[in-house]
């Protein structure tokens, strides 16, 4: 069984199937995070957004982050998928799921992964606003 699995994808993320891949008879705890596109950022009304990534670098860095989390928190398994392309309000842009023996490491490992992904992956987001304007977001303005 592959313990880490990171992907950049154009397709909606099938969470129910990915959840199953994290299962193991020794795993008593599962924690997940989903980032949803929301209608407001930095005081502006968002209509939709586009994600762009450097696929090769993002994938190898994402995989590295999952392995760091597995080692550091003794996770059973960790998976994360990040969407690219055009997303609408409510769409799931990123999903992280981890399994562990106990809940402390599951929460801590999941949190570690999303925090690192946000800082280290070469992924960019352009927001399209209700007023017709659009703008590239960076990690100083993006709160989530």
């Amino acid at each position, binding site marked *: 069984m592959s313990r880490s699995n990171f992907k950049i994808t154009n397709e909606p993320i099938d969470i129910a199937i990915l959840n199953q891949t994290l299962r193991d008879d020794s795993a008593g705890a599962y924690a997940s995070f989903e*980032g949803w596109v929301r209608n407001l950022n930095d005081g502006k009304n968002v209509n939709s957004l586009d*994600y*762009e*990534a*450097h696929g*090769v*670098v*993002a994938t*190898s*860095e994402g995989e590295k982050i999952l392995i760091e989390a597995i080692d550091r928190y003794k996770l059973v398994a960790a998976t994360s998928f*990040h969407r690219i392309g055009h997303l609408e309000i409510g769409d799931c*842009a*990123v999903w992280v799921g981890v399994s562990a023996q106990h809940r402390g490491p599951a929460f801590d490992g999941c949190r570690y992964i*999303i925090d690192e*992904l*946000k*800082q*280290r*992956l*070469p*992924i*960019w*987001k*352009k927001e399209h606003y209700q007023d017709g304007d659009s703008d*590239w*977001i*960076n*990690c*100083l303005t*993006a709160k*989530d």
Partner: protein
Amino acid sequence: MINVTAKYFAVFREKTGKESEVLLTSAATAGDLFTEVATRHLFSDPMLRCKVAINDELAGWDSGISEGDIVLFFPPVAGG
């Protein structure tokens, strides 16, 4: 002087108006090259908030660059 290819992403691609360009440069490091292109293309993001990859591997700003390298300039990221 060496020939390298600079590639631009997201807001850098929009500012330069191109996905990549071949540069003849005296820059010895990725950081030197960034300063060169940032000045020419009026990038507003400070280097320390940007990232660089050389031949598809993330690298430090002090990494040396060589003839034929492909240098990817990543503006501040916003995944998640």
